[in-house]
């Protein structure tokens, strides 16, 4: 169970894995996520389900190596198994025929926005995708997203590929400033990126959906670790989200709560890298 069927490196520190899980593959919809735990001593981390194959009974995840758990995960190989895999969790993305939608992803968030792009396209929307990364080498899923979009705009922070600039400002210049009407925006990526996009869409009064990556423990509504403030009310990302109206999200609170274990995470990662954690 939970066997790694495929593993590929998408960039310097972003990895794609295909995991065996027929029951999750069958049930999963765009926007949902899983919780995984590598071994007995591991922590539970949430990761978006990027794709699934009902016939093969597999799901796909994409993650960035940011700490001990993701480093350990990346070190596993095809044929290895994860101890625990739970899902699908969270509400699926609300997919409908909106008209013209813009999907904006940044960094590893491009992986998270990908299944939303696929589902929106399938529902008959005109999909404009804007994906960005720090530099050319860290851009992921360009081909897959191009195949599922009516139009794709690529940006890099350093200008090494595509348009030089951030996805948010490129979105404004290349779409809104050209007078194109947009019915809905989906944006997933680092918090500052989502904040920047929401600021622009709020001015243009375009409904904007974000997917949040809060810290979670049980991910079934039991602990409240993932609580966020949405339109002045406390919500749990795991059971009320993970997608919310971006104009209502208190991103400052989200950032603060995401930083809560920074020191401890760094300590665990350092010990892991020097091999002094015993695993």
């Amino acid at each position, binding site marked *: 169970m939970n066997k790694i069927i495929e593993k590929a490196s998408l960039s310097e520190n972003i990895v794609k894995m295909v995991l065996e899980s027929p029951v999750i593959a069958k049930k999963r919809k765009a926007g949902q996520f899983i919780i995984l735990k590598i071994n007995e*001593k591991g922590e539970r981390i949430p990761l978006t389900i990027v794709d699934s194959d009902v016939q093969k009974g597999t799901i796909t995840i994409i993650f960035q190596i940011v700490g001990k758990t993701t480093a350990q995960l990346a070190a596993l190989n095809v044929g290895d198994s994860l101890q625990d895999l739970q*899902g699908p969790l969270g509400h699926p993305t609300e997919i409908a025929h909106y008209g013209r939608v813009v999907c904006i992803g940044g960094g590893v968030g491009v992986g998270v926005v990908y299944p939303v792009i696929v589902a929106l396209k399938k529902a008959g929307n005109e999909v404009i995708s804007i994906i960005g990364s720090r530099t050319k080498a860290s851009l992921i899923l360009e081909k897959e997203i191009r195949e599922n979009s009516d139009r794709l705009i690529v940006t890099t922070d350093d200008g090494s590929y595509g348009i030089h600039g951030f996805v948010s400002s490129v979105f404004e210049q290349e779409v809104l400033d050209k007078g194109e009407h947009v019915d809905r925006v989906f944006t997933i990526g680092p918090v500052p990126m989502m904040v920047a996009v929401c600021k622009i869409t709020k001015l243009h009064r375009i409904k904007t959906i974000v997917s949040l990556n809060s810290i979670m423990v049980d991910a079934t509504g039991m602990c409240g670790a993932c609580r966020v403030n949405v339109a002045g009310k406390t919500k749990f990302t795991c059971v009320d989200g993970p997608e919310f109206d971006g104009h209502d999200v208190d991103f400052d609170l989200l950032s*603060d709560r995401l930083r809560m274990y920074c020191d401890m995470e760094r300590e665990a990662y350092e010990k892991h890298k020097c091999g002094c*954690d015993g695993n």
Partner: protein
Amino acid sequence: MKNISADVMETKETKVKKEKVPRQNMPEQDPKKRIRNFEEVPLGYSEKTAIIEAKRCIQCKNPGCVRGCPVDVKIPEFIQQIAEGRFIEAALKLKETNGLPAVCGRVCPQEDQCEKECILGKKGEPVAIGRLERFAADYERNSGKISIPPAVKPNGKKVAVAGAGPSGLTIAGDLVKLGYDVTIYEALHKAGGVLVYGIPEFRLPKAIVEAEVEYLRKLGVKIETNFVIGRTKTIDELFADGFDAVFIGVGAGAPVFMNIPGENLGDIYSANEYLTRSNLMKAYLFPEYDTPIVRGKKVAVVGGGNVAMDSVRTALRLGAERAMIIYRRTGVEMPARQEEVHHAKEEGVEFLMLTNPLEYIGNSLGRVIGMKCIRMELGEPDASGRRSPVPIKGSEFVMDVDTVVVAVGTMANPIIPATTPNLHTNKWGYISTHDASGLTSRKGIYAGGDIVTGSATVILAMGAGRKAANAIHEYLSGK
């Protein structure tokens, strides 16, 4: 009536011989030492002490203790076996009606149940039934001679159980012994429910829960972890898979917050999160285990129940210099067991009674540094019969804290009701049942434990599992 008076007479007769034997104390870890570790606090009876205590039981013909037990443990019988030195037999006697004796011996509120009804308690101290239960169950487990009852002929019917907590484990054990093919679906990665995520190691060692779960597996119960009913599969999908009945025992797992300003600041936890990190994820062993937990120096725990006591004692063991209970009424109204309060006081927990938080104050990083409270006084009795706390005007004050645990209760998790059409709930979201059998508004679906009653005790949930097992057996036998 006749029987009871006979028992009283027996008491008088035996009193002449036995009045010198007091209720036997159970040794405990020294408070100064135990606040530095997570090992169990009470150490259990020795064989000798257990026999002395067991001999205090006067073997009533019409035992009140059994009536006080939600799962009808054959109390005089198992105590008799201990008195005669037949410890394994005592454990087997317990297991006839209680699938989790080592757990119940530790966490049941015996003072409100079996021991409350003990005839010796009328004039002196009741028999220490809980301690004896724990002794017999531990003896059997430690002996390595755990016997498995002979396999029952399968009756060809399948029952699914949602939730591997006390009610789910009980119903699974009962039904598998009747020949049912039972599968428990557990959302978390470990079976046990509140026994593994909620109750700390120092009160209930996890190895004991694992052993009791393992026993159920040996009886033939299948347990699928990481399986969220309502998400991984819905209840209707379970019926489509061929299950004949479903029991919902998912607990009241959703945390309640007070909705006061600043409650979402960093380092403010729900008790569920704090205890889950520490117990289920073993964050107290970070970085050996990967899940972190904030080790606060000035920790305030809001609430006065057993969960609050578990949280505040966990905070001490994580290195708190001040570990405080903040409770809006007084010690008299506090719902926690006396034993837990006593242990907490011995360990140096501070109790700030008649105090209620109003607001949390954070630093520039969004982490809590202070707590604005108000003093309370007791007014008229409220619906619960307890005198309700009323704020004293102008008594606000701010105290320094660096970690807060909110332990003011839990509520129903909405995942199953939201994904099961026509499953009725009450206005608080708990599942409605017709009667004590646990039958819900849907044919073949039963529910029990905290998801029906709201937060209660392990043993009451087990009792609900037992009743639903009988009801499901009746329902499926008639089919």
